[in-house]
């Protein structure tokens, strides 16, 4: 902090202290577990669809064949997962803006949220954060066992207290700013596809 900043900081904090209302208690926040684990996959899938994403529950087989068939015009396939090579890895990007040249990127999410259809991504999965919004199409692998019931449970994930960047992503980018009609994409990714795929390292049972 600069020499000029310290007096400013202190004067703001002093003004706040002087004007604060009498202290009021922090309420206890329940967890609101509304759904049984059996319902999580169904709710999650509905949530993704509601936000214009796609869920593929069946085994897609060979990833390379699947992706080339699904995205016939794509040339740059980036893989951030060990089980698929793709045409490039995130680590090969020199500048983060270069992620805009990626047609399709494949990632694995460590958590889904049934209440909203969100998936969790962080700097660990993305490696290059800009992939989450500059790549054209995202394909995200998710172990159905890693779907939690609601946002309360989601924010218990350790990432939110440890990672520099954590993102709850729910469908592709969109906007309702023109005429109040929601369209996809907006500035971020054009499509988001979630593939249910058991993780060999899953800790949840």
């Amino acid at each position, binding site marked *: *902090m600069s020499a000029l*900043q310290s007096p*400013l900081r202190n004067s*703001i*904090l002093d003004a*706040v*202290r*002087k*004007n*604060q*209302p009498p202290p*009021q208690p*922090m*309420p206890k*926040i*329940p967890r609101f577990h*509304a759904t049984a684990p059996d319902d999580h996959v169904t709710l999650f899938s509905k*949530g993704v669809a*509601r*936000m214009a994403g796609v869920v593929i529950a069946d085994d897609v087989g060979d990833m390379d064949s699947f992706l080339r068939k699904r995205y016939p015009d794509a040339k740059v396939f980036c893989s951030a997962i060990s089980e698929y090579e793709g045409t490039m890895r995130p680590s090969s990007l020199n500048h*983060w*803006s270069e992620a*805009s040249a990626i047609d399709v990127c494949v990632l694995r999410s460590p958590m889904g949220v049934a209440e*909203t*259809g*969100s998936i969790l991504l962080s*700097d660990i999965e993305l490696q290059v*954060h*800009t992939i*989450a*919004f500059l790549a054209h199409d995202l394909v995200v692998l998710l172990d159905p066992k890693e779907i939690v019931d*609601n*946002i*309360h449970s*989601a*924010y*218990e994930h350790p990432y*939110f*207290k440890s*990672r*520099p*960047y*954590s993102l709850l*992503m*729910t469908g*592709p*980018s*969109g*906007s*309702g*700013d*023109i*005429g*109040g*009609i929601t369209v*996809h*994409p*907006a*500035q*971020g990714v054009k499509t988001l596809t979630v593939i249910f795929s058991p993780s060999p390292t899953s800790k949840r049972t």
Partner: protein
Amino acid sequence: MNPIDQAKNAEAFLADTTHEDRLDKLLWMMRMRRDAAARLVTEWEELRTLASEIKEHTLSNLAEYLEQFEANAKANGVIVHWATDAHEHNQIVYDILAENRIETLIKSKSMLTEECELRPFLERRNIRVTETDLGERIQQLDDQPPGHIVGPSIHKTTKDVATLFSQKYGSDPNNEDPAYLAGVMRDNTRPDILHATAGMTGANFVVAETGAIVVATNEGNADLSAHTPKLHICSAGIEKIIPTTESLAVFIRLLTRSATGDAITQYTSSFRGPRKGATMHVVLVDNGRSERLGMGRFWHSLKCIRCAACMNTCPVYRRSGGLSYGATYMGPIGIIVMPTFDVRKYSELPFASTLNGSCSNVCPVKIDIHEQIYGWREIMEAKGQIQVVKKAAMRVADKVLSSPELYQVSTTALSTTLDLLPHFAIYNRLNAWGKHRDVPEAALETFHQWYKNHRLKANEVLGL
């Protein structure tokens, strides 16, 4: 400076009935979507109570939480700045940019930077600013401030946007398809994003426990602005602090459902620190908030999470458009916030309300908005900020409404004379009601007359 005349400003908007009717229907649809989303959450009212209590707890311990956030953010590698007012905020941002020799800046939507008038401040200093939120960019291209805090260009029709883009970007003026127009914006903004050397965001929530800035967007443009360049500056009002990640969950569940009826935004992002080789600054801004904290009757307005549910439900806002308020914050929340910046300039705003209480009923953090509007009216009266015509009318209303006899005589007389009065006697500048609509036809009898003729007679027959 003369007070902002919201009613007069609204006349321009009302002159074009297409815009008025469309905005009214669109915002009411958002209100209904909000209701439908709330009904699906069993604990909705409990969440509203929790959100209100968490905010009241945080604001009543604000200094402590600000210090906690600062310590944690610094530990995460964030550079924290403090700004007493708008000018200091703008100067801090400019100094960071100048120090890094930045000439182009991309930014996501931030009402605080609107409040501080950051963009013109930077542009006067030769920094080119590109808004990355679609609605905000539309307003920037049209040289207008936001008309709504969630959808800045919501008052514009698709035709308006098609015409604007054809003038600015050379796109097809006859193609009003929103998907096409969003594509035009994406194609034209993308080069600015890829080549920008600094990005700015606001903050929906500032988490003391983790030092995190949480931003919710549908477009992903906060993430684009924060992470495509290597320099990220975040501006946050000091009231945006919440204690913990656990409490963040309560607000995330309420925010988007209240705003648009969706369960969550497409991108709900938590920025805790810079990536390797990058820099992250957070500017904590007071700009009148600490003073408002000491306003016993009005400090609850600091609980606002900027969802705009109060605007979407307000009959005055829906029919007059956001620009008519001549203020950064518009609609019911604007009415109670703006006078804290300038009592004289915004003295007319508290009268842009029917006091129906709908705003308070939909507020996710239970701000007593309509009661604060009434409170501000009392203050304007006490400070002599009410116009002569309004004052005279209120004096007459006070006399009539406080006397049942006088009220009955007046309503009876009015119902019989309205048909007889000449046009100029009803439609003149003293009758604001008749400015944009016909005065309704008077009923054949007043309620009291009807009651006397029907119920009292019936009661007599029944011996009651």
